[in-house]
């Protein structure tokens, strides 16, 4: 049985090792894409400058690309992630904002699982009938909504209608307690400050809900298909014949096996969630990596952009890894060796 914890550790180790060449590839690609596509960054940053500043900029950025890359990569290996044109260091800015995005994404994932999966089960059980069509319209609507339209509508119309705040992570910034983890709800919990926990949650709910709504389609659709595959199988009939109520047959026996295939889309879902944070964080003024990405891309902040892309890529790879581990945990037939 290749399923011991040792096998799992080796599996995870191998995958993390494979991350390195991918990361390198990403850094190279992003570097060249950003530098190549902006013909003259100095003209963009200093459209009206002359003399000293412009000469400095040319000295750095009018060199051959390979030289620039060599210097950038050298700095990277020494832990220097670079800085924006205004001198704001990249690494601290990203490090402070990653947890907030993680919190947002986890909240959205939670909503997707809690709402999307049961919807998929309902749709599978009522396949071809009105409930199925309703579910389909629901998740396809989420899919079809452009992120910013949904975010803008939610922030401007839904927020006041539901009495929820429409921006930021807390009502006052910074909050009146130390932010250890930079995750709003967690920090409030750590401070034991219940009213602020409620405040943090009320700020988190709407952006997470919009993010979840837009990406719910994949999860619901996949759950529906896997359930449809699982429901005619004999062990579902065995479970029924034991005398279990339909609810337990569906949610304990059938779903458990259907989820195995659903975890395979976790990677794609993560990609979509991360991509969505760029716009959602901007509009909901959420202090996360997405907002930082938005600024870096539009500035343009080369170092910042590369770093952000790398961080997102790491996120996607880690999500894929977690999905594979989950798959192995759920399906006893899978071996990790």
């Amino acid at each position, binding site marked *: 049985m290749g399923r011991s914890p040792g096998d799992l550790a080796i599996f995870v180790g191998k995958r993390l090792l494979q991350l390195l060449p*991918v990361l390198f*590839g*990403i850094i190279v*690609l*992003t570097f060249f*894409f*950003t530098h190549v*596509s*902006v013909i003259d960054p100095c003209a963009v940053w200093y459209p009206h400058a002359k003399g000293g500043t412009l000469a400095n900029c040319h000295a750095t950025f009018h060199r051959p690309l390979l030289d620039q890359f060599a210097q950038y990569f050298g700095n990277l290996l020494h832990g220097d992630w670079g800085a924006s044109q205004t001198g704001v260091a990249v690494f601290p800015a990203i490090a402070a904002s990653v947890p907030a995005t993680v919190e947002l994404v986890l909240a959205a994932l939670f909503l997707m699982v809690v709402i999307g999966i049961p919807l998929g089960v309902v749709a599978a059980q009522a*396949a*071809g009938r009105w409930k199925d*069509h309703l579910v*389909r*319209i629901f998740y*396809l*609507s989420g*899919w*079809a*909504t*452009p*992120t*910013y*339209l949904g975010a*803008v*509508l939610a922030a*401007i*119309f839904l927020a006041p209608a539901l009495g929820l705040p429409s921006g930021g992570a807390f009502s006052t910034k910074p909050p009146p307690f130390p932010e250890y983890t930079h995750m709003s709800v967690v920090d409030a919990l750590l401070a034991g400050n219940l009213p602020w926990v409620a405040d943090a949650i009320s700020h988190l709910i709407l952006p997470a809900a919009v993010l979840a709504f*837009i*990406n719910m389609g*994949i999860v619901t*659709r*996949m759950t529906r*298909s896997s359930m*449809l*595959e699982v*429901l*005619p199988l004999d062990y579902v009939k065995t479970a029924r014949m034991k005398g279990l109520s339909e609810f337990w047959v569906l949610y304990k026996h059938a779903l458990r096996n259907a989820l195995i295939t659903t975890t*395979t*889309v976790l990677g*794609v*879902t993560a*990609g*979509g*969630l*991360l*991509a*969505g944070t*760029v*716009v959602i964080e901007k509009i909901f003024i959420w202090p996360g990596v997405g907002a930082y*990405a*938005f600024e870096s*891309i*539009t500035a*343009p902040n080369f170092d910042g952009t590369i770093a*952000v*892309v790398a961080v*997102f*890529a790491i996120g*996607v*790879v880690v999500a894929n890894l977690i999905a594979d581990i989950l798959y192995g945990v759920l399906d006893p037939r899978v071996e990790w060796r």
Partner: protein
Amino acid sequence: MGASSPAPTQATSAPARGTRRLRSTEEGIGALGTFWRILRANPLSLVGFLLVAFLIVVGVIGAVAPRVVAPYAPTQSTGVFNQGPSWAHPFGTDGNSFDIYSNVVLAIPLDLGIGLVIAGSALLLGGGLGLIAGYWDRPRSVGGAVATVILRVTDVFLSFPSLILALAIGVSLGRGVWQAILAVSVTWWPYYVRLVRGEVLAIKHLPYITAARAAGVKDGRIVLRHVLRNVLDPVLVYFTLDIGTVLVTFSTIGFVAHPIPYPGPSPEWGSMMSYYSAALVTVHPWTILAPGAAIFVTVLAFSLLGDGLRDVLDPRSRRALVRSVAPTPPPESTQAPDAAPLESGGSTPG
């Protein structure tokens, strides 16, 4: 096809047994009837199909004879400023007195065209690479080495958050439709590689194909005649859904990077939305809602169609559909395992 008669006593006309019914030429004509039955089976997909057809027709007319569908030119002054929806201006007018309805309608050919070009080029490039990486992937051969290279590169691109990269490229490349199209296409093709490769792997080892190879049929011919035809179903489904995804992604780029100048002679929904910025939503909501709704409806239409097609065309969903209806187990006893092509909803919209 679909929920066919379950009794094994009935003579089946399937040309081959196995997990996939390989197509023959005679069935091409029958395919139309099948298509109609697919649409009728799920009313939502019929709605999607009709919407898509309607949009394509309006788009074509709009490109060729704009005056037929749009009462005003995109940058034509109507003399009416910031008016809400009315009979004369169904979507109202903006601060420049441009008729929003005309802009929205005349954006259809551009947006549909962009979607088709991006998805199509990704399909051709990614699909071609996937075909090579799938069919010619044999151990210790040139094909195998090429396949490995293709796969590694694809993996790197797949790990990319494509929207971010597309945004980065789009912002940097500056204004212009083609720059934006290039930006998205560069990040779009990897998904097709995985999809097509998965499908090819699933059928590569079927006895039918192996027999053809043993009989000496050239690889190219096999690929063209047999492999391609059977890969087509799930790829078609994915492509239909993808057009919608491309549209949403492209409009997000339009929001961030403004590649297409608006107002201008060629309106585009994303550019419109970014121009009528969020600040206007409370004051003149129709300005931003009209193009937004247009995107929504278009993507919804393609998604309904694609989702409905997937129920019947994607082999995994189809097996589940048949099995849930058939009273006796189908006569095909052995089911070869699928190489599990990515049964995902496709790349998510930004």
